[in-house]
């Protein structure tokens, strides 16, 4: 078998390509053996038969270029420069593994060499690579962002959203589709009417190639051209490499329920390594012994690597929960909150001021969302900033929430500080997987070597007949996931301080603004200041009842607090301000004085923030309780449209007052 290439590369390059493919092959075969021996504890997806693709593409990259990969990522990691011993140790679950034992086969991270991560979720890497490309575009340098994905990813929405965004913003991204004919065990021909991928590129307006994925020389040449185009600002390319994996989907699985032995044997004869070897030997470019020497050297390297992994220590079990949050935010320094002064701003103006201040200082900040560019945001969140910072930093998006949230993830991984403005929190539900599987887990998966400075903001809250797709609250949902910071401010003063904190914090922050509070004004200092996450505000002190209220409900309580005081009921009002972390200490200290606790929350009771507050109080402060813990919630229903129905599903100030009175009578 020959190559499509007419001009062969230099001998050194040929030997390098050969060596890289040998490293991948021998390492994979060793891992397969180790899997059988029980040294690999979880999944093990090998790359045997597909070595030419990672090798041909990555031979053009240096350690500053970024690679995003998929569940079958060993080959990409090795071709990008990961040492085999770090890979094997990771699969062995050892401390010396490239993810410190937090990842395994599908979560390989080595950002130091531009390996930004492999992923157990199909197609997310496509979006993350566009984020890598966006970082490079903002920085204005000549790096490239590469993603590898299988044919299984191309019928996923992320493929469409990612390729579209990459082209409309002309990002330096190479999309490499490794079409091995099966998505897990489903034949590509059954899941695509047209089982070719490269030709889809024309629909996005970018070059598309359909290559023989076992011809390393052709891949090397064509990828080289595509990467050169990307580096010179000519935008993305889609490269399909048709290939075949000659081992099972994952080690230990059966293979011949969906394909035949004969087919596998036929493809083994097309082995890309053998093909290159025969080619260069036939042409007399190298001597046999030179290749034999490489084989022996690699064999010795893999032996030593396995030995290293076996000898390596286990990670310390006491460290199992470290790296959920960035090291910089684990121990927040107490900061004094400034005097509010006399200048009044509304909620939107307050966050705008914080955003504007930080954008002026930090060129890595960019804002992305629908209508946040020249228009200034549906809620004026970015008004005027487009004129100052331009379209790259105030980037209007197509309506593809999963796409631009995934892009934001990749941008944060590569050093940008994205602000994703999704207008209504309801809209971002389409991006749920990117949020909880990728953004929330990324710092942990990478054992703390990646930080995730991404701010996701949007409106929540019931009111003005917004109906059910524009009124969800959702914060209890996000508060369930380790890795997030979830902010739900109730006033402009807190909003500015917390927004600024979000823009300097290295953790992903979900910043939810109640739409009914956007125009509410409070005194806001002109100076720059931050409010720590996880520090509740004691809004009013009192002695009889502790009332914890979130967002708009703080205002409902304030509306009736004086009336209750006139009746001899002294209410202490606490606003948690962030629901993750949740400051239950301040609440417990208050209940230790009052003996009574009521939580008022607009959203649903089930598995909610109030449940958590009540559980912690009952657990740690049981002896302080002089009455049952009470919760006042919105109705457990989607939000209705009609004002008559809508007002019946949200707690009212009157209901708050009644709940307090009833609690005092308990």
């Amino acid at each position, binding site marked *: 078998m020959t190559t499509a290439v007419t001009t062969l590369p230099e001998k050194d390059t040929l030997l390098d390509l050969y060596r890289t493919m040998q490293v991948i092959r021998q390492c994979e075969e060793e891992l397969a053996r180790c899997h059988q021996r029980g040294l690999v504890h979880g999944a093990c997806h090998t790359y045997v038969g597909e070595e030419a693709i990672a090798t041909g593409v990555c031979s053009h990259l240096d350690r500053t270029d970024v690679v995003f990969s998929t569940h079958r990522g060993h080959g990409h990691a090795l071709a990008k420069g990961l040492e085999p011993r770090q890979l094997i140790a990771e699969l062995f679950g050892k401390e010396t593994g490239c993810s410190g034992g937090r990842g395994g086969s599908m979560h390989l991270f080595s950002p130091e060499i531009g390996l930004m991560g492999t992923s157990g979720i199909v197609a997310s890497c496509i979006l993350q690579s566009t984020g890598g490309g966006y970082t490079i575009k903002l920085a204005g340098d000549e790096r490239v962002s590469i993603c590898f994905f299988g044919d299984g990813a191309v019928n996923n929405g992320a493929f469409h959203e990612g390729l579209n965004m990459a082209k409309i913003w002309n990002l330096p991204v190479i999309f490499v589709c490794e079409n091995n004919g099966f998505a897990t065990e489903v034949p590509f021909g059954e899941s695509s009417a047209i089982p070719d991928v490269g030709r889809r590129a024309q629909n996005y307006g970018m070059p598309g190639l359909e290559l023989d994925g076992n011809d390393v020389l052709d891949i090397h040449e064509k990828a080289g051209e595509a990467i050169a185009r990307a580096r010179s600002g000519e935008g993305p390319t889609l490269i399909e490499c048709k290939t075949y994996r000659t081992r099972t989907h994952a080690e230990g699985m059966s293979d011949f329920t969906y394909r035949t032995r004969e087919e596998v044997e036929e493809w083994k004869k097309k082995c890309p390594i053998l093909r290159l070897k025969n080619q260069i030997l036939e042409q007399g470019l190298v001597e046999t012994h030179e290749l034999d020497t490489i084989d022996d050297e690699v064999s010795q390297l893999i032996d030593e690597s396995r030995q290293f992994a076996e000898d390596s220590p286990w990670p310390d079990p006491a460290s199992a929960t470290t790296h959920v949050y960035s090291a910089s935010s684990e121990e927040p320094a107490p900061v004094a909150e400034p005097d509010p002064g006399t200048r009044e701003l509304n909620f939107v103006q307050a966050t705008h001021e914080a955003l504007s201040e930080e954008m002026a200082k930090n060129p890595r900040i960019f804002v992305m969302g629908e209508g946040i560019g020249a228009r200034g945001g549906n809620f004026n969140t970015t008004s005027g900033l487009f004129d100052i910072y331009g379209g790259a930093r105030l980037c209007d998006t197509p309506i593809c929430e999963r796409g631009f949230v995934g892009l934001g993830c990749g941008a944060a991984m590569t050093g940008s500080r994205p602000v994703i403005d999704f207008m209504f929190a309801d809209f971002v539900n389409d991006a749920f997987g990117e949020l909880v599987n990728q953004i929330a887990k990324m710092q942990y998966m990478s054992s703390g070597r990646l930080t995730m400075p991404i701010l996701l903001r949007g409106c929540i809250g019931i009111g003005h007949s917004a109906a059910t797709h524009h009124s969800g609250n959702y914060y209890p949902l996000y508060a369930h996931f380790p890795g997030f910071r979830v902010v739900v401010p109730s006033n402009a003063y807190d909003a500015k301080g917390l927004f600024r904190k979000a823009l300097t914090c290295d953790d992903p922050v979900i910043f939810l603004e109640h*739409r009914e509070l956007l125009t509410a004004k409070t005194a806001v200092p002109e100076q720059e200041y931050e409010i720590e996450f996880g520090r509740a505000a004691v809004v009013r002190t009192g002695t009889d009842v502790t009332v914890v209220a979130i967002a708009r409900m703080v205002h409902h309580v304030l509306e009736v607090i004086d009336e209750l005081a006139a009746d001899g009921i*002294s209410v202490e009002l606490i606003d948690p301000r962030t629901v993750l972390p949740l400051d239950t200490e301040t609440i417990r200290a208050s209940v230790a004085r009052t*003996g009574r606790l009521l939580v008022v929350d607009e959203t649903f009771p089930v598995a909610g923030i109030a449940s958590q507050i009540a559980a912690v109080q009952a657990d740690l402060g049981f002896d302080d309780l*002089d*009455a049952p813990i009470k919760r006042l919630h919105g109705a457990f229903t989607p939000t209705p449209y009609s004002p008559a129905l809508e007002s019946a599903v949200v707690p009212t100030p009157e*209901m708050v007052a009644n709940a307090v009175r009833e609690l005092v009578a308990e």
Partner: protein
Amino acid sequence: MAHPIQIPRLGWSMEEGIFIEWLKQDGDRIEPGDLLYNLEGEKAIQEIESIDAGFLRIPDNAPAEGETVLVGQVIGWLCAEDEAVPELPVTTVPAASVAPAATPAAVPANIRSAEPATRPPVSTPRARRVASELGVDWTTLTGSGRNGRIRERDVRAATSGGSPVASTADTVSESSSSVRHTIANRMLIASQTTAPVTLTTTADATQLVSLRQQFQAAAADARPPGYNDLLIKLTGIVLRNHPLLRARWTENGIEVSETIDIGLAVDTEAGLIVPVVRDPGGTPLRTLCASISDLVERGRERRLTADEMSGGAFTITNLGSFGIDAFTPILNLPQSAILGIGRIRRVPAIDGDEFVARDQLALSLTFDHRVLDGATAAAFLAELVQAIETPGAMLAG
């Protein structure tokens, strides 16, 4: 029929806007889609299109340029050619408020928690905790809470004649726990309602120190008796001869306690507690020692029952470990006497013509002068000093 021209809501949250100007004249013929007037909403000035057709009628009292208008407010009419112009409504209200308010019956059941089911009278965790701290038997109380639930206020009312401890609204301190409230209350009442006098003296504790060392040397397994154990035991014995030291002042006169139980003040993280040691004078030293260890340990864990903290005839408080000599203990009501133990320190003493080292112990006895006089108290203290100076004789007896 005239069509009202009403202020629309521009954007999600707008409740009011500013009327900028009419774009048509009174009397103009208007077609659907014609631009009628400019209105400033939350974000910008917007040209408002007409939905209906008719002749524009702008009443005299229509909003002036720059006037604030409410969403839903009628600002003019589109009339038929000869139609009379209706009056503008006198009061204009936001459209949202016009919507029918939900009646209580319409509120879904799941919006608030259900009423608790009927059940027998119970107490709150806080009430039980405070009862334990104050030595109150809460099971005898009547609760003021829902379904007769006994609450903190009921327990406090039982101990302080119905006046619950007042707390202040605006100052919030870390240590304002219930234990603290209880201590504050009791100390204040003791200071205000008794006639306390404190006598101080020193005892030569050299033999006591020696005795303790012998116990320590002999102890193989269990904790050897310490100074507190020895002093409680000696005090218990001496108290037998001094009934007024274990008496209490009541409205009916002086009552002498028949049992000689002694409270021991213990400092805990939550504050001072006083477990009561039963008949220390009559309890074998080893048993006494184990009993006191148990009380102190469970007291620090706040696991003592109310019974274990009530019924004492006398109290001992020891500040010796803090380097204190003499002090003025406050009476533990309703008792009439409390003994403060100071530190034991080695001091030079004159024996014949020579200085010798002796162990000296400071004692402070506060008594209620309503119940007994100075001579009675001094006689008790003198006998106690003698007991401490020659402990063997007393313990053997």
